[in-house]
């Protein structure tokens, strides 16, 4: 990671805080190393090693470098930090960032959450502890850490050395609150502290008492937290147009480096951003537009004080657009691909070809020209049926689901909780960040599952972080794919899948012949409206909850082919008649129906799936297409 540069405010030159290190002492078992305090408490800011200069010398602490500055931020270290970093306000930035990135539990009193501390992480979406107490227990480990901190390491160095422990250690050890990793919390604190450097801190000084300092700045400074989604104007038509997804991934990488502190999380085409300056958000949008892209976003712009009480993930409901200023008119021809710029090139570039010609702007031409070949899709699969599979994450559903699971877990572990817990609790950013990492790992596992199940020759090269194209031997395989997705999700997120809240990882599967334009599929699977959407081009769409996929799949397979074919044929003439026919067969459901027995699928309508979904699935199993696309 690039080291942030020093910045000048109008009153002070500040070395950017390395606030990530503030809680690294939580990796030490202070009791085991013999340094617990008189009350049996566990000092995690190295208090027992910093009592006086003799003790510091005994432990070899030099306070050399910004890593220590994040650790010695509290009021009891005031003299120490004024001596080592005179004039610096990094202790304040770290403290505010620490509170902003803290879980809901900061607001709860000790008496409300009593019991043996749980230092391992409880994974809400799995419903179990995923680690054991990872703390280092030897004095030699403590000395090694102190020596490491003395070298003034970067956070990347710390993750390389202690990353596994940081991931296994809960940020908060109180029972019921151990749901976030220390790793995500620490990283968030680092980013936020550096963004806070943009705030107006002119009313405080290095020796302002700690609570007074926070009070002085929290209501006069705002932060703008943004859930941002990057969109593209292009409507991919040819295989090479799919390079737009690689272009978006490259743009995200570039912007994550350029706005390293502002980007709290990046996954697929989505980011969680934080800005202290409106100009920085404008600059962000301008860079998005420079890449030929646009954005939609949800905002949470509040004072620091308001964010401290309601959390950073409390976004407004509607999405807003971030579109560039466009020229008032464009003369002909317009680019066929993006329809946002004048076409200045013809494709194919060679004029002596029978291929249909297209008009393209220079940006769309460039996307095609630099595209990595997708040889299976462009050559080998030309006559095949394919399925486009998109697995996006709904952040709002993730927040809702995590909140539900957090409440249930807290209620199971703590007593004397506030009566209005469900309305007061909020999902802190680091918890969402942990889940986002789990989502990204899931995408990798999904990729592996596809290649293991179908064989590598039936899975195209990865097109986007959450987008695949696979070759199908029959259209019914789409249902098998849906089953496999459910099985994997159940293995990785069992508690979340069992919860009554919507499952936030969506699946969109769209099936047609390989030649059918991608943009027609993308309209159906870009934002799946249900947890599992199976679109059969020319036949219809089936939507269902992910938890119901197995039940639906078994029922559809139990429908005799003859019955499926007849229902699909009737539906092509009259939807109402077909629906009536299904209801009538459901009501009858006796053994005499034989190979016309539709009761298996009839039972699912409308409580599990609607008629349109049943019709689509039955048509698929009956080998009936609307038209063959």
């Amino acid at each position, binding site marked *: 990671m690039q080291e942030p540069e020093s910045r000048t405010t109008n009153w002070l030159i500040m070395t950017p805080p390395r606030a990530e290190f503030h809680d690294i002492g939580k990796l030490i078992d202070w009791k085991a190393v013999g340094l617990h305090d008189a009350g049996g408490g566990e000092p995690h800011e190295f208090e027992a090693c910093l009592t006086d200069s003799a003790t510091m010398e005994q432990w070899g602490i030099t306070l050399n470098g910004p890593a220590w500055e994040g650790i010695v931020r509290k009021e009891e270290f005031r003299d120490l930090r004024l001596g080592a970093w005179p004039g610096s306000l990094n202790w304040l930035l770290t403290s505010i960032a620490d509170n902003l990135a803290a879980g809901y539990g900061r607001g709860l009193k000790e008496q409300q959450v009593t019991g043996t501390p749980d230092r391992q992480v409880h994974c809400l979406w799995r419903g179990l502890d995923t680690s054991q107490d990872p703390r280092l227990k030897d004095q030699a480990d403590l000395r090694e850490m102190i020596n490491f901190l003395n070298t003034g390491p970067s956070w990347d160095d710390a993750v390389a050395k202690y990353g596994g422990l940081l991931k296994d250690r809960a940020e908060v050890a109180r029972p019921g609150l151990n749901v976030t990793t220390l790793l995500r919390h620490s990283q968030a604190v680092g980013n936020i502290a550096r963004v806070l450097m943009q705030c107006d801190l002119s009313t405080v000084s290095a020796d302002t008492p700690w609570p007074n300092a926070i009070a002085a700045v929290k209501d006069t400074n705002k932060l703008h937290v943004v859930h941002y989604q990057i969109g593209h104007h292009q*409507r991919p038509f040819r295989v090479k147009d799919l390079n737009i997804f690689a272009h978006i991934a490259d743009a995200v990488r570039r912007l994550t480096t350029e706005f390293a502190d502002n980007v709290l999380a990046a996954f697929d085409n989505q980011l969680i951003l934080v800005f202290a300056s409106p100009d920085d958000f404008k600059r962000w949008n301008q860079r998005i537009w420079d890449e030929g892209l646009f954005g939609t976003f949800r905002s949470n712009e509040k004072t620091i004080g308001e964010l401290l009480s309601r959390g950073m993930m409390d976004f407004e409901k509607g999405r807003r657009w971030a579109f560039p200023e466009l020229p008032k008119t*464009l*003369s002909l021809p317009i680019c*066929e691909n993006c329809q946002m710029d004048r076409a200045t090139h013809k494709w194919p570039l060679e004029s002596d070809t029978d*291929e249909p010609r297209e008009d393209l702007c220079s940006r769309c031409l460039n996307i095609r020209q630099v595209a990595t070949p997708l040889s299976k899709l462009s050559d080998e699969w030309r006559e095949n049926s394919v399925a486009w599979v998109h697995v996006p994450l709904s952040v709002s559903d993730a927040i809702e689901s995590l909140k539900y699971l957090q409440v249930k877990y807290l209620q199971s572990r703590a007593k004397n909780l506030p009566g209005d817990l469900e309305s007061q609790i909020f999902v802190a950013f680091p918890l969402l960040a942990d889940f986002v990492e789990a989502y990204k790992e899931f995408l990798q596992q999904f990729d592996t599952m596809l290649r293991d199940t179908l064989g590598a020759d039936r899975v195209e090269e990865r097109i986007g972080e959450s987008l695949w194209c696979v070759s199908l031997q029959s259209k019914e395989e789409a249902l098998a794919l849906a089953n496999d997705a459910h099985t994997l999700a159940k293995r990785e997120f069992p508690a979340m899948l069992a919860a009554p809240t919507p499952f936030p990882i969506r699946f969109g599967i769209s099936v047609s012949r390989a030649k059918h334009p991608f943009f027609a599929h993308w309209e159906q699977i870009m934002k799946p409206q249900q947890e599992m959407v199976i679109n059969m081009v020319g036949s219809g769409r089936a939507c269902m909850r992910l938890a119901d996929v197995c039940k639906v799949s078994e029922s559809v397979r139990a429908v005799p082919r003859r019955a499926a074919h007849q229902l699909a044929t009737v539906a092509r003439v009259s939807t109402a008649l077909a629906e009536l026919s299904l209801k009538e067969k459901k009501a009858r459901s006796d053994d005499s129906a034989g190979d016309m027995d539709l009761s298996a699928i009839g039972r699912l309508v409308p409580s599990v799936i609607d008629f349109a979904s049943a019709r689509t699935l039955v048509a698929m199993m009956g080998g009936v297409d609307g038209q063959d696309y």
Partner: protein
Amino acid sequence: MDRTTETEGRCFLRYRLTADLLCVGERMRASTYRRCLEVIPSTTLEGAFKVAFPHPDRVVYAAAKFRRPPVKEVLTYSPRDRGTNVSKLPLQVEYLTGVEADLYVIKNDWTRKFPSRFTLQVGAMRPQGFGRCDVEFVEQLAPANPKRGVLALRIPDTDAAKNAFGVRTVLDLRAGYLFVPDHGHNGHYERALFEGSRVVADPVVLEAER
């Protein structure tokens, strides 16, 4: 000079529009695929009214909103070269079926003379039988104050169009381009406000509140 707006306020005439087959096309892709929009741009209706009710100076500002989500299908069609009578590359065309929409036409001294029932030819593929819309008058709407909402269709980003539809403020812009024919067979693309933009405008151009 038309003083309808001054005397009656900006009001709209509401019609019911129905069509069996409608193709509101975008620019064709590689001459082989025509995508169909799921909104009807105001310029498309403007063109249809120009044909149905020609006038040298008058522009009919009209907006249409589907009463229920339209069903989209695809037709594969092989046009023939007239000279050689040989099939060209097959053309795939998206179209909407069973269209039912509310059509709002701004009332002025010209549009008040329209009959209560008429036919419009809307969109692309008209020689092939697409686009025939039956229009029937329903009611005159009372003047309404502009309000905040989400734009339900596409309108040119021009003062004339924004005035006609009562667009006072654009709060959150989703932009693009609409084709505007010039005299003859030429034309150009004009910047437009697209559906999804948040505006303060006459309710006829806004999505229904959920």
